[in-house]
C-alpha cells in the first residue's frame, strides 16, 4: 500500500501536466497558401484564428489573421511563421493548402505533402487546391457572410458534389497517387474573380500536377469526365440536344453507379466504362410533354452521348498529358500478368486501347408530369 501510494505520487509529480497546451496558447491554423516571393523564395501565408473574448467590450476586429513568412524552403517558411506569432502554430485544424501555379513550377509539391503526412498535428485529409493567381489573394478574399475565408472555401470544396465540376483532392490522395502508378495528381482549381466591389471565389475545374511541375488545367467537361472515370461523380447536370440539335434539354443526375474495368478482348486491352445513371429531366425547351413513351429512347440516347462526350474528353486529355486517370494502376491491379509483360511499353499501349461504354440511363418520374410549366 505504502509503495503504491509512493509510486503514484512520484508518477504524478514527475509527469506534471504532461503535454498540456491550453487552447489560448496555440495559434490555430485554418488554411495555408503557398506562393513564390519576389526574390524567388517560398512565401507561406498562414491564416490563423483571431479569437475575441466573448465578454470583451471592444470588438477584437476580424475573426482571423494572416501570418506571412518568406524563406528558402517550405519547412523553413512554416517554422519561421512562428517568429511572427505569439503562440506556437497548430496545424490540426488546417483544412486547406492552396498552391499557386508558380510555386508548383518553382519549388514542387512533394515536400509539402511529405510535411503534411509526417508532422504530428497536420491532418492527412487536408484539401489541396491549385490556383493560377496568388494563393495569398485567395486567402484574403472577403465573403459576404463576413466569415473566416478558410471555412468558406472549405464549404465550397465540400459542396462540390452538387455539380461535380471540380475535383476534391486531399493530401492523402496525393500520397496515394505517388504510391501507385499514377504519374500526376489532379487537384481542384480555385480562382479569384475580381469584380468592381470585391472579388468572388470560384471552385471549378482542376489542375494537373506532376510532383515538380504544373502541367495543365482541365476544362469543365474534362473534369466531369475525370470524375466519371474515377467514380467521384456525385450529382450534376447533363445538357443535351434532341431532334437533330434543335431542342435542348437538361438532365439532372440524382444517383449514379460507375465502374471502369480493363479487359483483354482477344489479346487487345479494352477499357469498359459502365454506368447506371438515374435522374430527371428538369428543363425541356420543347413544348411537348414527355408523356409519349415512344419519344423516350431519343432522350436516353442523348444523355448517354452526353456522358460519353465527357468521358472521351478526359481520355483525350490524358492521351495528351499523360495517364492522370490512373489507367495503368487499374491494369496493374486487375490484369497483373498483362501489366508485367507490358509495363515497359505502357505509354505506347494504352492510348491505343479502345473504350467501350455500357451506360444505362433512367428517367425518373416523368409520367407524373402532364406538361412542363
Amino acid at each position: 500500500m505504502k509503495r503504491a501510494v509512493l509510486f503514484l505520487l512520484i508518477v504524478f509529480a514527475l509527469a506534471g501536466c504532461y503535454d498540456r497546451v491550453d487552447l489560448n496558447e496555440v495559434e490555430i491554423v485554418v488554411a495555408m497558401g503557398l506562393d513564390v516571393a519576389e526574390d524567388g523564395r517560398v512565401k507561406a501565408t498562414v491564416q490563423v484564428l483571431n479569437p475575441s473574448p466573448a465578454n470583451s467590450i471592444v470588438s477584437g476586429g476580424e475573426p482571423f489573421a494572416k501570418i506571412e513568412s518568406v524563406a528558402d524552403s517550405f519547412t523553413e517558411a512554416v517554422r519561421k511563421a512562428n517568429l511572427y506569432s505569439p503562440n506556437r502554430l497548430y496545424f490540426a485544424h488546417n483544412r486547406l493548402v492552396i498552391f499557386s501555379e508558380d510555386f508548383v513550377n518553382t519549388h514542387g509539391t512533394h515536400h509539402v505533402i511529405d510535411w503534411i503526412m509526417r508532422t504530428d498535428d497536420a491532418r492527412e485529409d487536408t484539401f489541396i487546391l491549385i490556383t493560377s493567381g496568388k494563393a495569398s489573394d485567395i486567402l484574403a478574399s472577403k465573403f459576404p457572410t463576413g466569415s473566416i475565408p478558410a471555412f468558406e472555401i472549405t464549404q465550397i470544396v465540400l459542396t462540390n458534389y452538387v455539380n461535380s465540376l471540380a475535383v476534391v483532392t486531399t493530401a492523402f490522395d496525393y500520397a496515394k497517387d505517388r504510391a501507385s502508378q499514377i504519374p500526376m495528381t489532379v487537384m481542384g482549381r480555385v480562382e479569384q474573380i475580381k469584380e468592381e466591389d470585391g472579388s468572388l471565389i470560384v471552385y471549378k475545374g482542376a489542375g494537373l500536377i506532376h510532383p515538380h511541375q504544373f502541367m495543365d488545367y482541365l476544362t469543365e467537361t474534362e473534369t466531369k469526365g475525370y470524375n466519371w472515370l474515377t467514380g467521384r461523380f456525385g450529382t450534376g447536370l447533363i445538357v443535351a440536344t434532341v431532334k437533330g440539335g434543335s431542342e435542348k434539354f437538361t438532365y439532372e443526375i440524382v444517383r449514379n453507379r460507375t465502374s471502369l474495368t480493363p479487359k483483354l478482348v482477344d489479346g487487345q486491352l479494352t477499357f469498359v466504362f459502365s454506368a447506371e445513371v438515374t435522374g430527371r429531366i428538369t428543363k425541356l425547351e420543347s413544348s411537348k410533354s414527355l408523356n409519349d413513351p415512344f419519344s423516350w429512347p431519343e432522350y436516353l440516347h442523348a444523355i448517354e452521348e452526353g456522358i460519353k462526350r465527357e468521358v472521351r474528353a478526359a481520355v483525350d486529355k490524358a492521351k495528351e498529358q499523360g495517364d492522370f486517370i490512373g489507367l495503368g494502376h487499374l491494369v496493374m491491379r486487375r490484369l497483373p500478368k498483362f501489366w508485367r509483360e507490358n509495363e515497359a511499353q505502357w505509354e505506347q499501349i494504352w492510348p491505343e486501347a479502345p473504350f467501350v461504354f455500357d451506360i444505362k440511363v433512367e428517367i425518373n418520374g416523368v409520367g407524373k408530369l402532364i406538361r412542363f410549366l
Partner: protein
Amino acid sequence: MSVKEAKGPALEQRNLTADLDTNLKIIRELLAESNDVVIREFLIAQKTKAAILCVDGLLDKEVVQRNVLRPLIVDAAETSFVPRYRLKDYVCKNLLTAEDIKEEKDIREILNKILSGDTALLIDKEDAALIIASRGFATRSVTEPSSEAVVRGPRESFTESMRTNTSLIRRKINNPDLVFESFTLGSVTNTLVTIVYLKGIAKEDLVREVKQRIRQIEIDGIFDTGYIEQLIEEHPYSPFATTGYTEKPDVLAARILEGRVGILVDGSPNAITVPLLFIEKFQTADDYYTRPLFTSLIRIIRILSFTISVISPSLYIILVSFQHELLPTPLLVTFANAVEGTPFPAVVEVGVMMFILEIIREAGVRMPRPIGPAVGIVGSLVMGESAVSAGLIGQPLVIVIALTAITSYIVPTLYDESALLRILFYVFTSFFGIIGFVTATVLIVIHLASLQPFGVPFMSPFMPFEGEDIKDSFLRAPLWLMKRRPQVLGGKKRFGERPKSSIKGEDL
C-alpha cells in the same frame, strides 16, 4: 447483551428474590439517578403488596391505567375471592386485561424491558415479575418519502419506529414466510436491529452470512442503518457503496421478494438491503409502476447522466488543454473565443469550479431553510454570471459544470460515487490528458469487476453476463417477460405465462 456492567454490590443478585422490598431496593439502587423511572407501590385487593415499574414517556399511560392499575386495585377489591398462593398466576389469568404479558425473573432483563417502554409488575412473595407490553411513545407519523420522490406508486415512507416499519412491510408482503429476526446491538444503547427476508426465496447462505456478520458487530452504540452498513460491508475503501438503502416500504418489499435481505434499525427511517448490484442504483420504484418502453428510455438516460456527471469536467480539460484536434473546427472556434482572455489554464478553472459546485451543494443541504434562497442567488449569479462577465472563466465551462451538477442529481443513489470518481478522473486527466482518462476508466472498470458484496458479483448481469437479468438492466422488459428473479440471488421463478384473454382473437 443487556446491562452488562453492573454498578454497586446490589447487582450481584441476578434474579428477583421473593421479597418485594428487597427487589425494589435493588432496582432503586440500579436506577437511582433517573427521574423518569416511576415506581408505584399499591395493594392488590387491599391485601398483597405489589408495585409497578415503568419509565415515564415511553409508555402508553392509558394502557397501564385501564389494564393494570384499575383491575388490580379497584376490580380486585370488589371480587370476593382472591387466592393467597400463586397470586401471580391468578392476577395474570383473571385480573389483568392487557393483551401481552410475559414472566421474567432476571433483573437486568426486567430493566431492559421497562427501559424500552414495557411495564413490570412485581408482587410480594413472588420471585418473578410480570412484564406487560405497554409501549407507546411519541413517534413521527408515516409521511411521504423525502429523498425518493415518486410520480406513481405508494407514497408512504419508513419512520423512526421499528414497529411501524415492520408493520409497513408486513402489509406489503402478506405471507407467513416473511421473517423478522431481531438482534440487540450496541453494548450501551441496546438498539433493536431487525433483519427481514422471505424464507424459501432468500438464499439460505445469504441469510446465514448476514446474521453472522450482524452478530459479530461489537460497538457501543448504533443510531442508524448507516452504522450497520459500514460494519458489515466488505469493501470499506471502495468509492462504491455495496449495500442499498431505501426509505420506501414498497421498494424494500420488492427487493425482499427478489431474494434480498433487508436490515432495519430502531430509530432509523432507512432500511438497507444486501447484496446490492451496481445496476440497482439506476432502478427506482417508478420503473416498475410505469410501462416498460418509457422506463427503458429513462434507464438509459440515467446511465448516460451518471457517465456525463463523472467525465464531463475531465472531458473539457482534454478538449481544451490536450487534444484540440478532437473538436470539430467550428466548435473549436467557439471554445477558442471563450477561453481567450481567461487568466487561468483550464485545469485550474475546472478544479476551482468543481470545488465550488461541491460547496454550493453542501451549503444547500446543511443550511437552515429560511436562508435557502441566498445560496441560490449567490451560487447562480455570483459564481456563474459574474465569473464569466469578469472574464475569470469561460462560458463553456459554466455549461459543463452545470451539466455535471444536473446529471449528478438524476441518480441520487450514485451521488457520492460520482463526486469521488469525478475527482479521480480530474486528477488523472489534468496530469496525463487522454492517457490518464483512459487509465482511470480502466482502473474503475477493474475495480467494479472485482467487487463481490456478499459473494455476489457487483456488476452482474454484465460481468458475468446473465442473459435473463439483462431484462431488468439498462432496459426494462415487460413484467410478464421477467420470469425469474435475479440469477445471482437464486433465480427462482416468479411469473408463469402471460395472462391470456378469454375473448377470442384478443391478446391481453
